[in-house]
């Protein structure tokens, strides 16, 4: 055992492939220390440090897109196309969050000291999510999930004088610990079954037929419960609406895209590495075959299909009744997880490409929608749909940009959301999951109704007429997000190529 350990021991040179992560964690520490010296109403030091750190990490990630898989640091993490993609996404999400928090009354308001902590935590969360995306070992899986969860708890309770915020945090902690306990149990079963902790070794053990299929199914369901909690799939979603509503809106914005994407990254990595082996699988007549053969319980894609349908339908139906925009967006984000799961169960490279493309688009448009909520909360002090009455006359361009985000979330052309959804549906159709495609398509019709409730308030309902001016920073970031939402709906080839490259360099899918 000692001999085998020595072979892949971590070395300093491994850090060359771990630059974005290193930058982010150093940023976290520096920003935390800078907070001690921060003076004045707004902590400029930590803000600048965290923003700069995220941007440097982003630049480092873009400049060092990994060509193929490389297992580093004692095989605990693997840097491959998938990790490379998320390394770009997470610092980007972090940077945007930091940017719009700077002018948000909830974060920078007078009711909190040590505000710089927030920026440090965002950087740390980006780090944790990057690690989630590259974890290749059960221990790293668990630790990275815990790191992101703990950071989330602290951020959810950031406004500790607000009862809602504290309650959100407490709920998050309790649901979070239960689900991570369940997941840990599943992981321990998996270790017990195979005696291995790295994903690749686990698959080898499973292929060797060492594990009982039923035991494997049980372990898988428990792990799925833990990851399902992170992505807020039904029935592991209970925390989601309350936490989204209670947490400060910039934090909600981050939660709705970051940990979800990271959860998907980890799910893809874990399931596609341990439970798929190379080669073409079985396919229905006329349908294209999956890119991997299922190891272990053969029907787990069906299980996920059911999960997907339940998730999107539940999210959409409950969203119909919401009047609070944050809650509405929370349920809508649950529905989007359902769409994403459709891509996940295809077990194909094209399905993965669709997921990654959708995650990218979803990050942009959902951040945009939440930023709109933040920007208006700063001015109107509320986030009920009725607060937006008459907005089209008060701030026409802002209303128009929100309209773009809403259309994109619904999935109407010519917006990025349509393209993302189309790629998902295309793969579902290509694999002949017709019932799933029809349910998914009808679900997007349902979603139209509640997104248009916001549009209706902005455009149809008369309200105050006095012009509304937003924080210039908020307007700038809104434009920054609305432009790609529209542009990607018209021309998206470069982004598609970027995503395709990431999937081509993915270590999983049995490769």
């Amino acid at each position, binding site marked *: 055992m000692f001999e085998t350990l020595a072979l892949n021991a971590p070395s300093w040179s491994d850090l060359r492939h771990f630059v974005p992560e290193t930058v982010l964690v150093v940023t976290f520490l520096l920003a935390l220390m800078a907070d001690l010296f921060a003076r004045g109403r707004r902590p400029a030091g930590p803000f600048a440090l965290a923003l700069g750190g995220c941007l440097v990490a982003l630049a480092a990630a873009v400049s060092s897109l990994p060509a193929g898989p490389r297992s580093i640091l004692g095989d605990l993490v693997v840097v491959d196309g998938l990790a490379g993609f998320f390394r770009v996404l997470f610092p980007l999400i972090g940077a945007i969050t930091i940017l719009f928090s700077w002018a948000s009354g909830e974060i920078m308001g007078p009711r909190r000291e040590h505000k710089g902590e927030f920026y440090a935590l965002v950087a740390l969360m980006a780090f944790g999510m990057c690690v989630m995306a590259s974890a290749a070992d059960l221990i790293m899986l668990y630790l990275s999930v815990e790191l992101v969860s703990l950071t989330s708890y602290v951020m959810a309770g950031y406004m500790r004088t607000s009862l809602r915020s504290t309650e959100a945090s407490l709920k998050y902690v309790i649901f979070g610990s239960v689900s991570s306990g369940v997941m840990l149990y599943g992981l321990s079963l998996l270790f017990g079954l195979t005696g291995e902790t790295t994903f690749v070794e686990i698959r080898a053990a499973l292929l060797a037929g060492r594990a009982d299929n039923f035991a494997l199914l049980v372990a898988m369901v428990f792990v799925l419960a833990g990851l399902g909690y992170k992505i807020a799939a039904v029935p592991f979603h209970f925390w989601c609406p309350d936490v989204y509503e209670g947490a400060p809106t910039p934090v909600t914005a981050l939660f709705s895209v970051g940990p979800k994407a990271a959860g998907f990254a980890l799910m893809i990595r874990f399931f596609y590495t341990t439970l798929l082996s190379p080669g073409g699988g079985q396919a229905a*007549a*006329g*349908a*294209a075959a999956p890119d991997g053969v299922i190891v272990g319980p053969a029907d787990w894609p069906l299980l996920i299909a059911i999960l997907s349908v339940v998730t999107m339908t539940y999210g959409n139906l409950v969203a119909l009744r919401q009047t609070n925009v944050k809650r509405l967006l929370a349920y809508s984000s649950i529905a989007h997880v359902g769409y994403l799961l459709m891509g996940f169960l295809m077990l194909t490279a094209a399905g993965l490409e669709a997921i990654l493309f959708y995650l990218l688009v979803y990050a942009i448009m959902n951040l945009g929608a939440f930023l709109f909520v933040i920007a208006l909360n700063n001015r109107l002090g509320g986030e009920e749909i009725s607060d937006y009455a008459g907005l*089209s*006359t008060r701030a026409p361009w802002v209303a128009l940009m929100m309209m773009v985000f809403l*259309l994109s979330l619904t999935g*109407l*052309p*010519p917006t990025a959301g*349509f393209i993302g959804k*189309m790629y998902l*549906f*295309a793969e579902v*159709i*290509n694999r002949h999951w*017709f019932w799933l*495609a*029809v349910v998914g*398509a*009808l679900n*997007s*019709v349902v979603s*139209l*109704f509640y997104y*248009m409730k916001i549009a*209706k308030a902005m*455009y*149809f309902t008369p309200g105050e007429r006095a012009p509304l001016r937003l924080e210039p920073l908020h307007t700038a970031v809104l434009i920054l997000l609305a432009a790609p939402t529209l542009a990607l709906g018209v*021309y*998206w*080839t470069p982004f*598609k*190529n970027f995503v*395709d490259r990431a999937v081509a360099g993915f270590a999983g899918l049995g490769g």
Partner: protein
Amino acid sequence: MGEHVLSWMTFAPLVGMVVIAFLPRERPTLTKVVAAAAAAVPLLLAFQVFATFDRSTAEMQFVERGSWIAPFNIEYFMGIDGLSVTMVLLTALLSFLCIIASWRIDKAVKGYFALFLLLETGMMGVFCALDFFLFYVFWEVMLLPMYFLIGIWGGPRKEYAAIKFFLYTLAGSVLMLLAMLAFYFNVRNPDTGAHTFNMLHMMDQANHSPWLQLSHVRHLIWIALFIGFAIKVPIFPFHTWLPDAHVEAPTAVSVILAGVLLKMGTYGILRISYPMLPDAALWFAYPLAILGMINIIYGALCAMAQSDMKKLVAYSSISHMGYVLLGMSAFTTQGINGAVMQMFNHGTITAMLFLCVGVIYDRAHHRDIDGFGGLGLQMPVYTSVFSLALFAALGLPGLSGFISEALVFLGAFPTYRTITIISALGIVLGAAYVLWMLQRVFLGEKNPKYDSLPDISARELATLVPIAAVVVWVGVQPSPVLDLMRVTLNNLIATVGR
């Protein structure tokens, strides 16, 4: 401009929309002028298209083609043939006239005209697109401006009508999206071997994969497409959005809705379902004929029961679209020519009807049929124009509606005797509701409340006269329009039909 006629026709309104977005809010007249100018470009080009269109070929003309999204084999592929050229002409004409008819809009002027131009881009695009993906994008782009045009500038129940319209049509189009994707993965470009969205490749049965040749698969895809198009037409039982949307929409929007948007449903069936799935089309022909009959009779009966003029016209649209369905389900040359002719004629006639209803509504602020009486003396010019439109709608010989309805019945009779005979009752019912309304509004006792109603204005007349001219001209001399479409449609019937 000569090379890119269709692109100019499609995107000139979009350019106008962008310009309008940056105009100052305080100058509404400038906005209107820009909108009219942007809509005039397609109209002028439409004359050019009409003059230079080659009537002797079924090939696509004015073709423009270029790669758009290479990884997904999406092309920018535009072109028109005899089927789409009539619709393109109709769209250009009605859009421009509607902008003129909207001159008195005073609420959020910029938004109204910007959305109207966006709508025109969507409509033009749908009729010109030959790439299925491009078609779908244009198809969806139309929904949003329509939603806002009804929801902001509409009548009392506008919000309900707007969202109902949006939900219904989106439900149909997502099914179309799935059918489109199923096609994409099972059709190969014969030149490159790659999957393709090219409609012309999809029409060639030799490019279909073995799976796509299974009959149950074809029937399912046909149904998915059909629901998408049926909601747009609208075909019973998917029609319930239409009365709400038409009644609540402002006049010009009703015109576009009835004049152009409804045609997209039948256009889609003829452009996509028929040539791509000819065997499924034959399999579904009989149900389609029955649905057409139901539309005719049901629409006419509902129209008779209405007391609101606009609602009456709306239900008469359902009835008239039934003739289109009946004609195209017969798979005879007269039937299909009559169907497409009826699409064109219904577009012009209903546009006139809605414009006329709008004229009286602007003056009296209600549309109750029984609330008027003896208007014939009060507003003689108006009465004659409205009567012309109404007579055209009931199919009076010498006006355009007669030609197409006669062709439809001639074409359908050999195929479906009983259905055709029952449908012919629709003519009688049509005469009944039209004449009854005519009598109640324009004849009889004069209502003293409306003693001071001014007659139709010059601007309103200017929107009506060009359409009336077309109605009369086509009624007397149908060959210019028939010639445009005949070769293409005969070719379609030859490839699809029995």
